């Protein structure tokens, strides 16, 4: 059956929107400030965490996903998952290129000098 679940129009409060705006501005300041602190590899983790939080606020409140159908929420998640697939698997190629194959005693390939007849 086609579902018509958006008969109710959810109108956000101005105060909600302004609060989100404030949070986003603060988060921007925070991410900038943290970037001046030397934290090694942790810098990118914090930067991404803050960015993801900001994006989530925009998606959830500004874009109204909190009031939308489960189907729409599924689509949003799916888009992110697919982006994840692209990045993670491509990444895995580069991360594993330097791995060296260790020949084991039980493998009789030409690489480890075992006699082949």
């Amino acid at each position, binding site marked *: *059956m*086609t579902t018509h679940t958006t008969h109710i129009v959810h109108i956000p409060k101005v105060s909600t929107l302004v609060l989100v705006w404030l949070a986003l501005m603060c988060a921007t300041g925070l991410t900038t400030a943290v970037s001046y602190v030397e934290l090694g590899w942790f810098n990118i983790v914090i930067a991404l965490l803050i960015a993801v939080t900001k994006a989530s606020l925009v998606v959830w409140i500004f874009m109204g996903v909190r009031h939308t159908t489960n*189907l729409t929420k599924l689509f949003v998640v*799916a*888009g992110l998952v*697919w982006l994840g*697939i*692209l990045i993670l*698997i*491509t990444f*895995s*190629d*580069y*991360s*594993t*290129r330097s*791995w060296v*194959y260790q020949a084991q005693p039980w493998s009789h390939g030409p690489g480890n000098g075992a006699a082949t007849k």
Partner: protein
Amino acid sequence: MATLVQRSPEVEAEEVNYLNVEHGWKSWLLTTDHKRIAVLYLISITLMFFVGGLMAVLFRINLLEPEGLFSAETYNRLFSMHGIVMVFFFLVPSIPATLANFLIPIMVGAKDLAFPRVNLLSWYIYIAGAALTLYAVARGGVDTGWTFYAPYSSTYSNSYVLAAAFGVFTAGFSSILTGLNFIVTVHKMRAPGMTWSRLPLFVWSNYATGLIQVLGTPVLAITLLLLAFERIAHVGIFDPNIGGDPILFQHLFWFYSHPAVYIMILPGMGVISEIVSCFSRKRVFGYNFVAFSSMAIAVLSFVVWGHHMFLTGESMYTGLAFSILSFMVAVPSAIKVFNWTATMYKGSVSFDTPMLYAFGFIGLFTIGGLTGLHLATLGTDIATHGTYFVVAHFHYVMVGGMVMAFMGGLHFWWPKITGRMYPEAWSKFAALIVFIGFNLTFFPQFILGYLGMPRRYHAYPPEFQALNVLSTAGASILGIGYVIPMVYFIWSLRAGPKAGPNPWGAAGLEWQIQSPPTTFNFDETPVVTEEAYNYGPLEEIVG
């Protein structure tokens, strides 16, 4: 029978349908009727099919002689343009933009797709892309292969890379919009009572195809753009001189292009489900399994792309993962083949032309699919990557599979689309010619590949000549097999016997409306109360 001196208007009046409701250029070029747009697409992709086919004829002629009859340059351009035109301008849009465009609204019980104007826009975008690509062809084509690998395409090639890349880039948006339209239509436009589990499997297949189009094609778009920028700026992120990695291009390219091959086969599988059940007079065996297998293919297709890169430099461990996943993606396809076979078992099978194409599909797709496993295996791929084994494999699935399904679907729904029947004897003959020609063309290529003949080479060692000549001969026969339907289909438009609403006695909403349908498909919104494929004996259904 009395002959009327004066013909009364009622006798001569043809029923109003989407074809005759309006006449003139504007009524076609500004239409928003999904059925007319489907016809526009049908004409366009047929033209592109023959352009791509012409390339094939030419390079198969080249391969008659071991030294090659043309230069390497020319040969490279021919096979590249053949691939680009066939993949992006024929196979990808083929069933979705024509048959599915026509049928999906009717099959779900709607008056049109969710976004009719977007549908028309997608056709115009397709035409723009085709024009750009034909311009590239006219100026001498591209010699990078349809895969546009960097850094050859970005830096060293002297051919019309930008034109071809932008042509494909443009066509990609046509594909995205079609997929988007299907997804929203299937979710939001189903008639009362049309639950997901009552949808024809053709709808499930094209829905899954739409998902792939929407998720994969944008990555192709950005990849081609990056390639274009690199070519324009003379430096970029794929340039090894500054630390760029050509393999990154391949990752991005194949992230789309592998799922693309499922865009190119899933709709065909949907057609086969429809045809097999109708001509076995039995509901599809294991409906749920077939429906979910379409979804499984759509999802799994996105995690196997690295099997195109086993030998080009990706990490061996990533290769291992991709190999295992590629074996897994074969399973849902196999499930479909088993289910179609089980559908026929103890069914009442008839051998009309669509069913002949379906038989061809099942056999040839299976061969193509199995040889794909051979390529997905790391060890054997070392021997067969970049050889004619690969060429044979994908032509078995694409031509032996998809094109056969397209032909079958075209024959099956021709009476619905045009209100006319094609000549049965000629159609069976053409199907036979296609089958023979196809196998003669491509089976020798399995052997050639196995013996080591590389692909994309204009010349080859003399001992391979016999098989190549056989292949070229087969190609000529195959070409004839495709021309014959062109002729009789066009003939049937004027002189073919008129078809009623349901010449096959098939189940499905599309067979309950007139042939051809009216502009808005249904006089009143249908209410669905039955499962799909509710087949009984033929006599019970009005033909």
